[in-house]
């Protein structure tokens, strides 16, 4: 199990390094998604399956989709079709695809070898996390929901056309 952690840690660092050195924002986002997936595998190996699911669904799923939407909105123009065609070339996506395949092989390996899918004895499962969240951390959850509401309103206000034009 430890070797799975080391491999995914190395993949996460390599993918992050590649993400911050790309010239194209979409390629950087692809590598950042790989880095997040590698982090998810690390969480899974560490015995935190709830957070592993959360990082895949919320971080790689929702936050990165926001990034992709904004990058696509900024790219709208006459030559965006050419750019689109260029981004479908294999050398744009072969790296992230390779990293993802390695990660899924690791995940399948660790799930098949251990039926529970986590290292024995180290697991803090979703039930414990939920009881902590809605027990001692209830006020924090309420504050987090208010923060999300404030973020929603702020994004709506700032994103409108012609806000605060002087």
């Amino acid at each position, binding site marked *: 199990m430890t070797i799975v952690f080391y491999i995914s840690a190395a993949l996460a660092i390599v993918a992050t390094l590649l993400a911050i050195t790309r010239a194209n924002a979409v390629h950087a986002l692809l590598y950042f998604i790989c880095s997040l997936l590698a*982090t998810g595998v*690390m969480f899974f190996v*560490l015995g935190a399956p709830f957070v592993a699911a959360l990082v895949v669904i919320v971080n790689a799923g929702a936050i990165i989709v926001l990034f992709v939407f904004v990058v696509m909105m900024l790219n709208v123009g006459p030559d965006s079709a050419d750019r689109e065609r260029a981004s479908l070339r294999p050398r744009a996506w072969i790296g992230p695809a390779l990293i993802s395949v390695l990660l899924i092989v690791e995940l399948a390996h660790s799930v098949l070898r251990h039926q529970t899918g986590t290292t024995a004895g180290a697991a803090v499962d979703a039930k414990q996390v939920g009881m902590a969240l809605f027990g001692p951390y209830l006020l924090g959850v309420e504050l987090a929901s208010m923060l999300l509401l404030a973020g929603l309103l702020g994004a709506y206000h700032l994103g409108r056309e012609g806000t605060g034009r002087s």
Partner: protein
Amino acid sequence: MAVVPAEIGLIVAGLLFCVGLAGVLVRRNIIFILLSLEIMLNACGLAFVVAGAHWRQPDGQVMYFFILTMAAAETAVGLSLILQMYRRFSSLDTHAINKMRG
């Protein structure tokens, strides 16, 4: 059963944080700066989860949940600010907005 030593996990988190910090310092495109901030937040969360797994307590994962919430709100506001910046200056370069009107 071999369990990952906490030191290794913390070193990985530190390395990821440093990569994100380098991204913030080096890149001039504001989308990449926001992405690097996201990398740094994720590295902090990794450190929390490693510590939580080391002590077998759920608090590390709870803290990651809060970090994730904050990252989501920050990304939403930051991206709408980027949209406004692109509308006004037609540029994503941070050098385009380094003059204040005070």
